């Protein structure tokens, strides 16, 4: 959570070393014999502090603005009566390293995603990805997800899971859930309709 985690303390002993270096008379160290100080002057620091206050208010406004813009865009593109959202979750991931996923809805490929390490890590810590948002009419539909990655013992692993579902009136959600089956030591791929 620290924004700048790896701050290293300034090592003041450097001063001692060079100033005590006796035999060299005509060469004086200007590189490591000065005690490090903050290079930004007080006036500039004060200026940044003042502007930072104003930037905080801008940041807050922009967050709210983004929320509003997103809500409006979604209202325009995905009316609540037809909106359908697909999520992807990963529980632990001990037996499966997710590399990519492809999603077909009503036999048409609608989206695919390749995961970076950072995204995989976020998923394994409890994050859930909003994989796809679309409009679906009421009635019967099918969804098929294809998962690729590394299975137990690091072997390439491909699995598909499919489900048929009835889309009703109003927003609906589907969760593609990858979890571990401790007893079988294998990953489990499930689809859950919310």
């Amino acid at each position, binding site marked *: 959570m620290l924004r700048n985690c790896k701050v290293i303390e300034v090592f003041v002993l450097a001063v001692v070393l060079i100033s005590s270096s006796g035999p060299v008379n005509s060469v004086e160290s200007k590189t490591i014999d000065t005690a490090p100080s903050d290079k*930004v002057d007080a006036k500039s620091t004060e200026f940044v502090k003042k502007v930072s206050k104003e930037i905080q208010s801008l940041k807050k406004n922009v967050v709210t603005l983004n929320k509003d813009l997103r809500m409006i865009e979604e209202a325009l593109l995905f009316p609540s009566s037809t909106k359908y959202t697909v999520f992807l979750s990963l529980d632990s991931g001990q037996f499966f390293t997710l590399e990519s996923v492809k999603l077909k809805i009503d036999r048409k490929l609608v989206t695919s995603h390749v995961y970076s390490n950072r995204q995989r890590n*976020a998923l394994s810590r409890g994050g*859930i990805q909003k994989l796809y948002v679309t409009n679906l009419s009421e009635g019967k539909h099918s969804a098929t997800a294809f998962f690729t990655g590394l299975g137990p013992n690091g072997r390439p692993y491909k699995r598909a899971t499919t489900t048929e579902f009835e889309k009703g009136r109003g927003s609906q959600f589907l969760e593609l859930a990858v979890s571990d089956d401790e007893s079988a030591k294998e990953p489990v791929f499930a689809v859950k309709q919310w």
Partner: protein
Amino acid sequence: MLLTIMSGISPTQARSLKELEFGVILYDYFQQDYFSALVEYEYILASENLLEGEAVEVFKGGMMLSYGLADDSERIFDELLADSADDEIRNRAWYYLAQMYYQRSELTKANASLHKVRGTLPKDIQLQYHYLSMLINMNREHLDIVQNYLDTSSGKSELKPFLAFNLAINQIKAGDLKHARDNLKQVANYSDRSPDGKEELLVLADRARHALALLAIEQGSLPEAWEHLQTIRTTGLYSNRALLTYGWNAIEMKQYDEAIPALVILAERSITLPEVQEAKVLLAHIHELQGDKRDALKEYISAVQAYELGVALLKETRISIAKKDIPEEFVSNLKAVMNDSDWYGTQPSVDYDNLTPFLLDLLSSHSFQESLRELGDLYAIRKNLRYWDAQRAQHELILDNEVLSMSTKQIVNEINTSAVLYDKYYDQSLELKLHIQTLGLSNQKRFESILKMTSDTLSSAGGSLQLLADEKTPYVQPAKYRDDVIRVHILASKALERTNRYIQLLEKMVRNVVSRELDQQEDRIKYYEAQARLAKARLYDEAVSTLQVSDNHQPSAE
């Protein structure tokens, strides 16, 4: 559940729709994309699907703090501390408050907040808590607590070596040299053979070895210092300073022949580095001390040329920083620039790379880093607002298109035409089905799957057609959408203007600070240049005097 997830100890599957939606915030949050996480938070809050409770508030406060919204997070934590009786919630709130004060450079308040933490800390922030306390320089008693934590805690963390290093430095300040040395040795043991060999940890290990060497020198044990200095890598971010110390240490031990190779390696690097500037003149001086005047003169002449090049490079850097997009390019690539393992050994090629070696010292300044971080956030905001500006045309197009779209009568006609087609295809499919049944069993099997697929598709189309026919009027977007789109885009334009204004202000400030730093660099190079020129002149003088003396001693030809 949220605190468990935040701690990353045992992620659990979502049990409710609210948890599912909250997982989306966590997905951005764990990727350290705090802006997107906050937008998602506000979006879910507005959709009335947000989880509730103190844990959510703590999480929001932490997220805001991470995005640099210190004032708002302070308000959240103050409220929590006023209302909550839960120890874990209170401890988290105090920790985050301390972090916030630290970011604002209010160290006394940060220290006071950390002292308010009582009992056992949540596991996921223990290490960060101790780390923060080291940065704030807590008292001697606390150093023992952190030492105990390091001695007893199991598990690996990338922060641990940094904590051990900073603890050692604080222990040196407090006079506890024994523990300091042990901690530094522990950090110094890290090597590229470690399973998770990372460059930044290797650099830290070099720093620890350097610190051990300086401690040994301080205690007059030059041979021990020598041992430590020999283990520092001759490449990598920290190698310049180490090579220079190595050279000085050898001089101290009067082992001039040992100093020369280290200084030669250093002197071959870019003249933009302060250590190289010093090494150049020092190398020449060692030759002089050894009585090797010819080599000394050669080195002084080469040093003067290098300093002239350094001044020319500074001039180029000044031109670079004046260019319009350089600050943005530099800030956006800051991580890559800092991680670039090659720049210290070669002449920079890209414009913003020109800046890097000159600004290394400046980049370690907390205030300067804060300014660059604010600038980085502003550039990200500008990119985001420009994206929405581009979307504006699309939003308006969707609204305009609806006005131009088909009338209800036209839609009814379309549905009727489709219904006729549907009936026709349905009859055809039944005929085909009957026809297939007249075929032999093996042929029937061949057509089974294609027939099922056709039947499913027709059934789905029939269902959709029925739904459309049941609607009395087609979907029309509410009239207020147009007003909302216009209003929000006007606000976005204003925010973009404001962002550009702040960017201009901060860029100007950063340019000024950089310019002052470059002035200092120029002064230093010129100082060394003057030293080298004086020494060169002195050596020439001595040579001329020697020649005159030998002329005087020559027997007259007459």
